[in-house]
């Protein structure tokens, strides 16, 4: 065979490998049947999955009043808060207020909407995506001032810091009215804020992938074992991107008969019926924490154990708070994570007055508690709680 005959074949093989981005040797698929997790109700004790729970009350001062928390990012020394009034505030790990980050406004170094923030410990930088200005801003955590910014021509649903050198932006199908660049992951250089690479995540290239028709538009990018994971509520398959920027399947949620039916058209209402709508997925080394809507109710929680493949509908059987892990560690309120601190720690948050109200419930009078001292300290702290006090962050340390 002459070289000019072989060449197209070689090129075809190379192109196919590049375009699909699948790397079969890396592929470890966990298939998870959601039916088991919906039907199998179980009260799970926090001590079954965790060693310890800690509390960080965020300092309350006039200049750092926190509204409804949208996003919390952690480093070893700092806590970065974004609230629904687009305020970005930095606290230390004891909850002491350090400074505000950035300024809202129409000026060149000012942002209009804080859609998402991330903090890099190694680079000592804070990144913000402003969906109104279509701009990335970089802030210095020591001063709170903007060091650089750049406009982008795509409309991401989420972004994450990838290996400190890149910011990975994922455009889901939900961005379709604004851009034809949906299903792309754009890799932006953290130094010059220019697009270095873009990866097209076509669902038909992901084996087993199926559009879920959830159209709730939830997306979550996260880093685990130095890989970039991308969960999209519109697909049943979560993928990751490896260091070669190839797309690999990670886990598949088998919705089976709990798929959304196409006759539901108004997604502004809480959907009734038998379908399960997944709103959040948190992955740790040993578990998936799945949160969604089922039978017209928010906060349906499923714990999937990767080791024994067991899935349970985490059920807290009491009238005032019917979901979450029963807190037998310190007798605090039932726990369910809102996000990850790191690979082994999860967080939740609540206003002190709300926590006090829940903990005054008669349920807590006689429950067995492992750490009674912490329980007393928490109650003592909550004694003088006021409605405008800033939230308390709960940190759960998982068993390794």
């Amino acid at each position, binding site marked *: 065979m002459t070289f000019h005959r072989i060449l197209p074949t070689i090129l075809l093989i190379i192109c196919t490998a590049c375009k699909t981005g699948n790397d079969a040797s890396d592929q470890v698929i966990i298939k998870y049947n959601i039916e088991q997790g919906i039907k199998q109700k179980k009260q799970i004790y926090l001590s079954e999955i965790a060693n310890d729970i800690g509390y960080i009350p965020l300092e309350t001062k006039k200049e750092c009043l926190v*509204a409804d928390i949208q996003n919390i990012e952690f480093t070893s020394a700092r806590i970065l808060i974004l609230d629904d009034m687009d305020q970005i505030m930095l606290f230390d790990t004891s909850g002491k207020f350090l400074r505000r980050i950035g300024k809202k406004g129409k000026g060149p170094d000012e942002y209009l909407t804080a859609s998402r923030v991330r903090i890099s410990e190694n680079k000592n930088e804070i990144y913000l995506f402003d969906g109104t200005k279509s701009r990335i801003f970089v802030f210095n955590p020591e001063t709170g001032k903007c060091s650089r910014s750049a406009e982008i021509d795509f409309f991401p649903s989420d972004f994450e810091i990838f290996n400190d050198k890149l910011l990975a932006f994922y455009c889901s199908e939900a961005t379709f*009215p*604004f851009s034809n660049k949906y299903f792309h992951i754009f890799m932006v250089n953290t130094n010059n804020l220019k697009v270095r690479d873009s990866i097209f995540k076509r669902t038909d290239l992901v084996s087993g992938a199926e559009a879920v028709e959830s159209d709730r538009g939830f997306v979550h990018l996260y880093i685990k074992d130095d890989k970039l994971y991308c969960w999209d509520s519109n697909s049943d398959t979560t993928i990751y991107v490896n260091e070669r920027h190839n797309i690999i399947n990670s886990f598949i949620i088998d919705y089976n008969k709990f798929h959304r039916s196409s006759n539901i058209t108004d997604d502004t209402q809480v959907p009734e019926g038998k379908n399960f709508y997944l709103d959040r997925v948190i992955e740790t080394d040993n578990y998936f924490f799945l949160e969604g809507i089922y039978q017209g109710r928010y906060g349906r929680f499923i714990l999937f154990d990767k080791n024994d493949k067991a899935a349970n509908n985490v059920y807290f059987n009491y009238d005032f708070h019917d979901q979450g892990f029963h807190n037998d560690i310190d007798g605090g309120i039932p726990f369910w994570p809102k996000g990850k601190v790191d690979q082994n720690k999860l967080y939740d948050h609540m206003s002190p007055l709300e926590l006090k109200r829940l903990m005054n419930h008669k349920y807590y009078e006689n429950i067995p508690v492992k750490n009674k001292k912490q329980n007393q300290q928490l109650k003592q702290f909550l004694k003088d709680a006021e409605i405008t006090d800033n939230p308390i962050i709960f940190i759960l340390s998982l068993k390794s």
Partner: protein
Amino acid sequence: MKSYTFFIISLIISSFLTSNAYSQQAGLIEQKLITLQEDTVYLSDIVKNKSLIFRYSVMDCKPCIDSLFSHIQKIEKDIDKKFIIFFTYFTNFRHFLVSARINQINNKIYLIPNNELAVTEDDINMPYFFIIDNQLNVSDLFIVYNLNKQEEELDTYFAKIKEYF
């Protein structure tokens, strides 16, 4: 994706509503409101004179709310603060209080339980202004639908309504 479609349709609807910058409305029905002190008051108890209402909700477009708040600060030199009332909605009472403090609103702000003011424009997730009199008649409703032209349109709107005060 449908939420974006809904948003775009809302913008189109609002552009019709505001094609003359503001539209006329029927009156509001009597209803309960919640104060910053968590007391319940009736709408007719708080509207004793013709007043400018700024209606916004936690569900609304955030840059639009911010932008209108900054404009309210500008018009306070023309319209006495006592004639400006804020009607808002938050899912959580603490967030209502914190929002009022951050925006430095000390009085005349009320939480609307269930986010239902019985004004058609409540459905479109955009903040708006209107004038209300002591008979609860609504007039001069104004929605900013184009952020680029809003300064000009708001100036025109306030030039008209400041004559009421």
